[in-house]
């Protein structure tokens, strides 16, 4: 009576849920939606196209802007695309009801969130890194001979390109976590835009030094410290930026995991 397989004549099966299998499932889910391809392609093309535009139209006016920041100007826009995709990965399942199927298959629930975060972060990081490097190299075709001529092997260049990819990935993970917390695509987008992009700008208008200092550690501000060869004015160091951003993402995902365990679906 206490064993599970004796209640029916059905033979015990070789199937069972493992973390690797949940990861495989989330990988499959991500790539079998058209939205994923469209969003990732858009994010990548935006960065490349804007990078090329920056390179071809450069006339020496923006000499004080860091070269990597300059060619990767498109990441300001691709960040929105990637954040939206992150929100769709989690909140999208609540909007469609898919979450009920997902959590019936994996009733321990939290592995679904970890797997979503891991698959999404891996894909976004690789895509952003490749896009950044390609955009940098292509833009340099036109930037050669100007004060923005740099090689990939120059000190700090690859670090800044990778740092920008890491920052985009972590910001998108925050969006994914907000989507899981709020269970609503519009809600998630609103929360991301409001709290990550707008709130710090509003806070910095306050005439308080303490607030200005604190805002440097906010996600978008910490992210800006990562994608630059030279030191960014009024920002923390790249190491501190990476640490703050990682902690923000971890905190949002931990809160999402906690609520995922507790709430009814």
């Amino acid at each position, binding site marked *: *009576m*206490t*064993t*599970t*397989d004796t*209640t*029916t*004549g*059905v033979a015990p*099966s*070789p*199937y*069972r*849920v*493992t973390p690797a*299998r*949940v990861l*495989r*499932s989330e990988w*499959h*889910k991500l790539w*079998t*939606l*058209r*939205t994923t391809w469209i969003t990732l392609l858009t994010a990548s093309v935006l960065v490349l196209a804007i990078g090329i535009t920056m390179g071809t139209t450069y006339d020496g006016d923006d000499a004080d802007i860091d070269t990597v920041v300059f060619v990767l100007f498109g990441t300001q826009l691709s960040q929105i695309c990637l954040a939206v995709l992150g929100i769709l990965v989690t909140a*999208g*399942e609540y909007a*469609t*009801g*898919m*979450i*009920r*199927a997902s*959590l*019936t*298959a*994996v*009733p*321990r*629930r939290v592995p679904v969130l970890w797997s979503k975060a891991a698959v999404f972060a891996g894909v976004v990081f690789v895509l952003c890194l490749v896009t950044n490097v390609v955009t940098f190299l292509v833009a340099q075709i036109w930037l050669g001979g100007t004060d923005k001529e740099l090689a990939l092997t120059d000190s700090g260049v690859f670090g800044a390109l990778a740092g920008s990819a890491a920052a985009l990935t972590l910001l998108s993970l925050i969006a994914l976590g907000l989507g899981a917390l709020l269970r609503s695509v519009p809600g998630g987008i609103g929360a991301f835009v409001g709290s990550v992009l707008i709130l710090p700008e509003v806070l910095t208008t306050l005439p308080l030094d303490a607030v200005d200092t604190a805002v440097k550690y906010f996600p978008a501000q910490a992210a800006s410290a990562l994608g630059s060869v030279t030191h960014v004015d009024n920002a923390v160091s790249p190491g501190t930026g990476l640490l703050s951003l990682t902690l923000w993402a971890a905190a949002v995902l931990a809160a999402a995991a906690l609520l995922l365990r*507790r709430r*009814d*679906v």
Partner: protein
Amino acid sequence: MIRAHGLTKRYGGKRPKTAVDDLTFEVRPGTVTGFLGPNGAGKSTTMRMLLGLDAPTAGRCTVGGRAYATHSAPLTEVGALLEARSIHPGRSAYHHLMALAHTHGIPRSRVRDVLDTTGLTDVAGRRVKGFSLGMGQRLGIAAALLGDPATLILDEPVNGLDPEGVLWIRNLLKAQAAEGRTVLVSSHLMSEMAVTADHLIIIGRGRLLADTTVERFVRDSGTGSVKVVSPAAARLADLLAGPTVTITSDAPGTLDIHGTDAEHIGRTAAAHAIPLFELTPQTASLEQAFMDLTHDSVEYVTSGAPLEGAAA
């Protein structure tokens, strides 16, 4: 085997609504058990609790001997179809099933099998967005069958299906039960359950109203009567009168007799040379018995009984 003990679900803080109220029942393998109740009776909530999607406020439930979430391969233990659609419309039927299959290491061949069983092979590559309600239901059932589960929990599976699809579900459920599986299927249609289920669990306002077989339910429902039309109705009524017999009359010469059967009435009439124009046993339809039962539960609640949530 499904067991629920004292299962209770309340929603809301200040004015709580009790969706499921102290429900205790067992669903045995080898038969189709119909889970019946009017809309809003708590069927879907109960099913979600069985699947660990909703946490009970009180009580507990087990499937296959343990809480659903503690199974190492839940899809092989329970296959579920929930009333609300649980499918991303942007994904194809094949990829939807494959995504679920990956979590358990279920092979591609099994996905093809269930697509075949549910008649979806031809549309497997199409996005679910374009599916009709019936095709969506079939895909939900394909997902339920994916792990070849020992228990099936299906919430209103015939919703949106054409007559052919309804017949297909009926046969599928019976075949699954005949293989020794536990089958719990909810419906608000008694007529459908009458031809599909062997056993019935009926709830109203979250409470258990009946836990019985289809046969016994009809027999015990007490609405079986005999309609008699005779020119000597009054005399016949006097002859049949007894402590267990109640006789009513809607029209002159017409009797509605409870508590005895047509054979006894016929013999009594013949013995006294009373002509009969009509002698018709009125078998209570399941639908009528069901309505009577749930109607009573509604009356009970609105008559001012101190039931939580009645104020809502």
